[in-house]
Every structure is written in C-alpha cells, then in structure tokens.
C-alpha cells in the first residue's frame, strides 16, 4: 500500500502526491465515470431528476422518524428481524450474535460502506469467522489488506500491473494481465464461497418504507448472491437510507445508476422483502436488518442534515479535482472525497477529530454540480470550518493572522500604508530574484514551495485614481 491510512494527515498527503501510479489510475477512472455521468444525465431531463430526488429526500428527513417506524413495521410484517444499533460496538455485537446463533463459519459479503464504517470484517474475523468480500474490486483489496478508496469503485487506486501482482501473490495465479482470465479465476474461487457460506452480508442502497424492502444494487451479481444463496442474510443500513414508496425507489435507483456509472440501470437491483416462505425453492431462511445510527442522529442535530440526503453515488468524488490528485486513502477515513470531508467530521463524536478534512478542498463546487441530490457540499464544508474555529480547533498563528488581517482591512489608513510598505518591500525583494518572488518565510513558504509570486504594484489602483482625479480637476 502506497498510502498508509493510519499515518498523520500530512504524511498521507505526501505519500499520495508522491505516487505517480495513483494519480494515473484515479484520474483515468474518475474521468471515465464523470464523463459517463454527464452523458447519461444529458440524455434525460437530468435537472428535473435531481430536483425531484432532492424533494423526495428532503421529505424523508422531515418525516424521518415516521418513515423509519413504517419501515420497521413492514419489515417485521414480512418476517424480517429488525435490530437497532447505536454505534460500532453494538452493530458488531448484533452481527456476531447472529453468526453465533447460527453456528456460522463462513461469511460472504457484498461491498458495503456501512459495514466498512463499523469495521465489521475485522470484528467477525476476531470472532473466528472467515469473511470473504465478493465484489471483484473489494475482493482484490481484501487480498491486499487495504480499505476501499472509493465509495463505488473500491480498487480505483490500483493499476492493472498492481492488481496482477495481488492475484499472483495471493491466489497463485500465473502471471497474466488478461482481465478476462483474472475475472474467471475470481468467479471460480468466489463461486465456491457463495455455495458454502452460512451467512450473506450486504449494505443497503435504499429501503422502501411502504413495503419493507431492502434494495441492493450491483453490476456483478454478488448482491443477489449474498442475499439469495446462504441460509441467513444480514443487511446493515444507515438509518437515513430510506425511500417512501416503490416509485420513489425507482426514481432514486435511476438517479443513482446514472450518477455513479452513467448506466440507465445497474445490471442488478435486488429487492428483498423477507425470508423465503414455505414452498419457495430458494432464498434465505432468516433476514436480519441492522438499522445503524453511528452518529447520524448527532449529525442531524448539529445542523448537517443536508448531507444525510446522500445516496452514496460517488459522483462528487469523480468530479473532485482534489480527489483526482490524492485518491481516497489520503483522507484517512471510511468515506472520502467531498462527501467524506463533510460527513466524517459531522458524524464523529467531536468534529475536531477530523479537523483537516474540511480544509482539504478548494471549494470549487464541482461536487455540488455533480451531486444528484444537489447537496451544497461547499457550503457544508464552510460551515464545518466555522464550527472548527468556534471550537478553537484552528492553529493559533492562523487565528492571529486572520484577526490582524481583519483589523488591518478595517481601516483605510492602515490598509493604504500596508500597501505602500508591501509594494516597496516586495519589489526590492523580487528584484533580487529576477522579477518574481521565489521564496517567502513561513507560513507563506507554502506558496513559494511550488509557485512564484508577483511583487505588489509600484503604483496601486487607488494611486492611479487619485492622480487622475487631480488631473481632471485641474483641467
């Protein structure tokens, strides 16, 4: 792994920026997905779809507890077991318990951010179970012992040769870069696991309140496999992943597919409403749904509810120029990219735990433009920065700097004198280095480490204005 997600922030960024493979892999893939999204949204009334999705999600949050209860009631009626989990430990305990009660040994998993959030694999393995990720990308990074680096494309950070190495090392596959051969090998290996597994675990892309239905969306079919083949199926869902009706589900589904990969529909959308009944040929005998809070109610109360409309399509990551440069691991959190920079601190017990993330963005707004729910991510990032300042989490030098800047700018006299001073100083200094400034002292060396700086003007605009006014008066 090139980027150590446990390293301090500055180191992670340095590692990421220093890895040329990473940038090539990430920018190639994000460009492809971003273009596909744009094209597929242009094909339809994309703007209208986004507005309608936003309206629907807003309504869900306004009536959140009611929809949750409706979902719970319907899931129970359908024969599902509903569990509520407040945090990571409870969620882990619930799933471990289910495994224990079923004397399970082997778990097959479909890619899921909610289970990443609760570090479920680790907990299950500690409890003596074998856990196999079955999404091809997720399978590769599980073999490589890395976390996913993108919400929908977990192995986006690896190039073909790196993936081939993993196959070679961990699966004894003869050297090949033929994607078809690699896929067949994975298919054969994972097929065995699907047939043998005791438990299937997935996340939940959305749940339909009116029918009590868990929907998972995949292209490979592993979502259908984990929810169909084992005797026990467990879906772990964030409590915000709700839609009111079946029609709403189809609206969101189409917005999700188009925004994530530019598809009209993903290959599979599997909608499970309960365990198999007497006479059914297949399907799980038990369906468990774990409703996970893990900071969501806290985030809601803190005023960051807008980000709870997120449908985890990854479009904001693909559109983000920062993400393109550093990939996902550099964020050091389960969720990365623009949405990760918002919800990681907003979900955390203290937002100050992730104080770097709201600053890891130039606030260019490409994410908001891409988001199918039109979440105002730049605005939320600005709000987080303000909250961080209020909680005293910003460096003293910065606070002092901003305070003196605002004092200075509050007085025309001071502003003008400073301008004069800066002009003389910077021109003398720039003259020494051939016209442009090549070095400045800390903290401004952050600028000159990579870029030159032009000296201040010898004559400011206001000087010109004054002179001109005088001339005109004389004339």
């Amino acid at each position, binding site marked *: 792994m090139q980027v150590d997600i446990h390293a301090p922030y500055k180191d992670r960024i340095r590692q990421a920026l220093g890895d040329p493979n990473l940038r090539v*892999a990430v920018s*190639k893939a994000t460009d*492809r997905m971003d273009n596909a999204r744009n094209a597929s949204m242009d094909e339809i009334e994309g703007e209208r*779809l986004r507005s*309608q999705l936003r*309206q629907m999600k*807003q*309504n869900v*949050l*306004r009536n*959140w*507890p009611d929809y*949750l209860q409706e979902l719970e009631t319907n899931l129970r009626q*359908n024969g599902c077991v509903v569990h*509520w*989990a407040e945090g990571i430990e409870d969620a882990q305990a619930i799933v471990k318990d289910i495994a224990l009660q079923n004397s399970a040994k082997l778990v097959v998993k479909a890619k899921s951010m909610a289970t990443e959030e609760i570090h479920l694999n680790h907990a299950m393995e500690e409890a003596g179970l074998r856990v196999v990720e079955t999404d*091809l990308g997720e399978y*590769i990074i599980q073999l490589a012992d890395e976390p996913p680096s993108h919400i929908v494309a*977990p192995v986006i950070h690896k190039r*073909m040769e790196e993936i081939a190495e993993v196959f070679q090392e961990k699966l004894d596959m003869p050297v090949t870069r033929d*994607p078809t051969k*690699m*896929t067949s090998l*994975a*298919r054969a290996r994972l*097929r065995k696991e699907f047939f043998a597994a005791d438990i299937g675990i997935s996340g939940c892309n959305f749940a339909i309140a*009116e029918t009590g*239905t868990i929907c998972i969306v995949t292209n*490979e*079919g592993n979502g*259908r*496999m984990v929810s*169909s083949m084992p005797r026990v199926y467990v879906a772990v869902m964030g*409590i915000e992943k709700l839609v009111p009706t*079946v*029609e*709403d589900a*189809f*609206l969101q589904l*189409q917005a999700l597919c188009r925004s994530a*990969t530019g*598809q*009209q*529909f993903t*290959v*599979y959308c*599997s*909608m*499970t*409403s*309960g365990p198999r009944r007497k*006479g*059914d*040929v*297949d399907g799980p005998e038990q369906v468990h749904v774990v*409703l996970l809070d893990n900071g969501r109610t806290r985030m*809601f*109360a803190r005023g960051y*509810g*807008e980000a709870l409309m997120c449908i985890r399509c990854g479009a904001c990551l693909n559109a983000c120029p920062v993400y393109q440069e550093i990939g996902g691991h550099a964020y050091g959190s389960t969720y990365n990219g623009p949405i990760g920079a918002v919800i990681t601190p907003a979900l955390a017990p203290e937002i100050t735990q992730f104080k770097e993330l709201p600053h890891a963005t130039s606030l260019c707004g490409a994410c908001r433009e891409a988001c199918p729910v039109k979440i105002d991510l730049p605005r939320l990032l600005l709000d987080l920065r303000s909250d961080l300042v209020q909680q005293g989490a910003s460096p003293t030098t910065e606070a002092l700097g901003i305070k003196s800047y605002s004092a200075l700018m509050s007085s025309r006299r001071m502003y003008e004198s400073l301008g004069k001073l800066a002009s003389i100083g910077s021109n003398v200094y720039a003259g020494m280095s051939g016209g442009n400034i090549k070095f400045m002292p800390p903290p401004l060396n952050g600028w000159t480490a990579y870029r030159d700086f032009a000296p201040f003007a010898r004559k400011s605009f206001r000087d010109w204005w004054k002179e001109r006014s005088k001339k005109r008066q004389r004339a």
Partner: protein
Amino acid sequence: MSTRDNILASLRETLRQPDLPFPLLDSPPLTQAERMTVTSASGGLWAQAERFAQEIAAVKGTCELLETETEARLAIVSRLQIWVEEEQAARKTADAERAEDWDVLCWPPAQLHVEGLTHILKETGFKLIEPTDLHDPEQRERIRPVRAGVTSVEAAFASTGSFVVGAGGANARAASLTPFRHLVVVPFSRLFATAEDWLAEMRYAGGLDAYIRRSRNISIVTGPSKSADLEGNLTLGVHGPKVVHAILFDDVQE
C-alpha cells in the same frame, strides 16, 4: 430506553428545533402526479420490442424478436442447442461429451409462457433441472455445474432493455443467477415502454406493494453480469450470467 427509542426520540427532538437549518418545515413529498418518467420509448409493441433489443445490445446482451409463440418455442430450443455446441467447442477436449452440457435450470413449465416448451426440450435431449429446495445440500450440488438457465419475466422495460424476475414458489432465484448463460422469455404482454409504466399499471391494479412483498425477492436485471474494477477494463460474467439472451415474442397479435 432502548436504542430504538433513543434514536427515534433524538430525531424527533431535532425536528422540533425551530431554527433547524435543514430540512425546511415545508418539505412536501414527491407526489405520484409530479414524479417524472425518467426514460421513454415510443410506438406500438413491435417498436418497443425493437427498442428493447437495441437497449439490451447496448449492455452486451442479445435478443431475438419473433412473431408467434411457436417460433419462440423453436428459437428457444435452437438457442440452447447452439449453447451446448459453444460449450463443447470452448472446452479443450472438445470431443468429450459432458452430460451437464444438456442440463437446463428451469422455472416450472407453467411459468414460462410458452406452451409445450418443456416437452420439446426433453424430446431434444435436454435435462430440465427443477429443484424444490436449494438449501438441501444434494440439490444445491446438482445445480452447481449447470451452464444454462431459462426463466420468464414479470415485466420488461423497452426504454432500458431491463427485465424483472420475481422469485417465489417454484420460481428459483438461482435460474437467472448461477448459470453461465441465461435465456429469458419475454412475451409482448409483459413488455412495457418504461419501468414507470409498469409501476403505474401495477399501482392502478392495486397490486404494486402487495406484489413487491409477496415475491420475497425481485431483481431488475439489465444485461449480463459485469465489472470495470480491473482498471476500467470491462469484463463480463463476474458472478451472474456472462451471456443473457432475450427471446421476445408477440403473444398479443395486435
């Protein structure tokens, strides 16, 4: 208080805050009347069938359009025969007959909407696998080597080339999932211009929510299983079928 009650209480408390920045007090639901139809497909059933063919081809599936049920029946049989040949040709030891090549994991005859299909399949040497309980280890093992699955659909959407397979009763989920090749039978009477058209019809008939719940699992399928995880290279048949072939036929005769 239980975790559940805590969560619900916390949400309600937040929603009571008068100056909560989000969501606004006035956040009406998206109504049936205003909800948009995302895609569209125009024309009569044949035009829609052609659109379906075009769309499924775009996602690497294949398709045949037939005028009658009789033609469909023959097309199904010959498609399965072609598949057997392809399987055998693909194996290194091409001469070795493998009994499993002739296995077909099938929905029960009544669910396939093609009269006499199972009969003719048996006549032509196919072995129909119709499991009753796939948690039974023996039956489970039995379906493992099966290379072809045959199902019909609940509905198909012309504008996207998608189809809906519902599970329940003798309709195995596995039939459209575990085999390498999936043959899907779509009578025109199940073809809708768009997903929204199907939903509207079901809703109108009063059966949408009941249907979704009753069929403990439905899957909307759009083309063969695929992945782009290997540095963007498209590969097919990752977990689900690598080949998806739809046979559409006119059972309406407009």
